[in-house]
């Protein structure tokens, strides 16, 4: 079976800056894989390349065997990307936004409706979905966006800081949803996060990135054991310092 994601020696140069410098890692199907690293490490650039937004300067990236450069359109059919700073259309209601997004993936109107119902449940926004999104709080918008990313049941969900801006309760709720989706729908999740607790609790495997390179990889338990730390935060600090 093809790997969900295969990133091989990827280099990305912006002007004179090497945002990614020979990054390689793989994600197995049905896995929740976390990318962690300090600010500017290249996490978002890596996710954007996998999402077909950016082109790698060197190296290759495949999603379920599809090359993200040569088969970008096919890749877009099986992924769902949630950017870290995603927004919503302020003059559409939450419901209209979900319908708009659903129509790109659904085959018919019934499928769109089913997706929107699912998203309504994931987001927990209830009646507020009828309101224009400009009236939503930051947390409400994020819940709507997470719901949008998951409602299409993609083969690969790429979530950049999925719980960014959410309070503890809603973060917990979103994490549970992600876990449930992986279990029930076989969705593979590739996420990045600054929240080490989140990564430790939710991810099957984690990659630590620094200066555009992979500096450590393994399950949270393996990494803690390898570096003799009690939690992932300590591992992160130690690895980044060593690098």
């Amino acid at each position, binding site marked *: 079976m093809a790997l969900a994601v295969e990133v091989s020696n990827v280099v990305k140069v*912006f002007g004179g800056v090497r945002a990614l410098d020979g990054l390689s890692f793989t994600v197995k199907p049905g896995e929740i894989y976390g990318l962690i690293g300090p600010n500017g490490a290249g996490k978002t650039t890596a996710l*954007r390349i996998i*999402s*077909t*937004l*950016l*082109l790698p300067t060197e190296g290759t990236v495949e999603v379920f065997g599809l090359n993200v450069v040569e088969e970008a*359109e096919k890749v*877009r*059919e099986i*992924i*769902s*990307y*949630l*950017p870290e*700073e*995603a*927004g*919503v*259309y*302020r*003059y*559409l209601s939450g419901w*209209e936004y979900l319908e*708009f*997004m659903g*129509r*790109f*993936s659904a085959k018919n109107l019934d499928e769109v409706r089913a997706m929107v119902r699912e998203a309504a449940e994931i987001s927990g926004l209830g009646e507020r979905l009828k309101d*224009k999104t400009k009236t939503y709080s930051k947390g409400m918008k994020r819940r709507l*966006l997470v719901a*949008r990313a998951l409602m299409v049941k993609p083969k690969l969900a790429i979530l950049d800081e999925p719980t960014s801006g959410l309070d503890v309760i809603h973060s917990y709720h979103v994490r549970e949803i992600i876990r449930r989706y992986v279990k029930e729908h076989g969705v593979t999740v590739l996420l990045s996060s600054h929240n080490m607790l989140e990564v430790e609790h939710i991810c099957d495997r984690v990659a630590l990135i620094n200066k555009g390179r992979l500096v450590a990889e393994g399950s949270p338990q393996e990494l803690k054991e390898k570096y003799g730390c009690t939690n992932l935060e300590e591992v992160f600090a130690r690895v980044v310092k060593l690098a």
Partner: protein
Amino acid sequence: MLRGFRNFLVKELKVLARDPKILLGMIIVPLVIFPAMGAIMGYAVQTAQERGVKATLIVVNNDGGNWSRSFIDFLKGLNAMGVGFNLTVHVKENVEPLTGEKVLELLSKYNAAQIVEIPEGFSENITAHFSNPQIKARLRFYGALRGASVFENVDSSVVDAVINQFNRAVAPDVLFSEKATVIKGEIKYGVDPSTVSGLLTSQSIALPVTTLIVLMLAVQVAATSVAMEKEEKTFETLLTLPIDRLAILWGKLSSSIIIAAVGSLAFMAGYNYMLGSITAGIPKDLKLDLAALGLAPSTFGYLLLGLSLFVTLLSALALAVIASAFAEDVRSAQSFVGYIYPLVFIPLLTLMYLDINALPLALRLVLYAIPFSHPAIVSKAVIMGDHWTAIYGIIYVSAFTVVVMYAASRLFATEKILTAKLKFKGLKRKEKAAKAS
């Protein structure tokens, strides 16, 4: 159809139509401002009529009877009556036949805008009126088209005011006027110069002004639409969806065209109301066929004009979309399209007042090279029946549009749509100043 186009277009229309800035700027403002302007200008015309205005009247007396002399004395005495008239009256006896050429010669000689002819039988008819009120005396009023200024209408209304005053002094309804206009050297009886002047005004001013406003509004809408996706952070998500990238480009262009069309309809409705208010005093039953008078385009000419407007609009939108793709946010996009505006309004305003063929060759070539000049060039060309200038113009603007659209589609197909950033010197300075403070 491009994948996802319809869905995207519907979203674009909803978002644009619900944006209060667009609703206010494109629909409410023209619908309110123009009628308000019309009411004010209509009031100004009415007041001018009531007060009387400064005018030079040439009286051609082809009657020679007592009542004709009384009428001339009445005219001369109006200024002293204190009812607001300030007339300069020149009298010419027996100018028959009063041809178009003669009318123009007299108007030019005395630098006047109108001639009042007292036709033969005038005195006889007034005398007869007292025994049979059905009989009325007629005055002929001639004007010539020498421009399309709105305010020429005011001048020609003097004769109505004079007749009202005379009727008030002598007998109700004893006098009536028959108006005639000299167009291209020929006298057209029953054609009020005010009406023709008003209609010509709408031809020569309304079109460039409408084009100008529609182009600027459409450019604004298109420019902000991509920049807004970037500013509100919706663009990244959009580009990872299973939607044809060209569908995004076409969706943005189409929705901008639709919104601009609705805006221009609102504009035209408001503008027509304004013209209606200004020319409210003109008899409604007077039907003028400007095309037959050689003052308006033929049906084919109108078709060419419409086509020219459409391709010009498309070229402006494509340019604006490219411009906004390079901008990081709405503010930068608006600054960028600010550089397009002079290319829109300078040629249109220039061509409103000047004939392109009268300009030096170099300036003419510059104007032909700017695609936004063409609706104004075409509007004049089709009135003159010069369809080839219109056709060449449409071909040129279409070719320009294809090149710009190709560039836009290339831009949308690559990561440059996301990473391209242009900052402007002015903005950079402002940002630096803001940071320093």
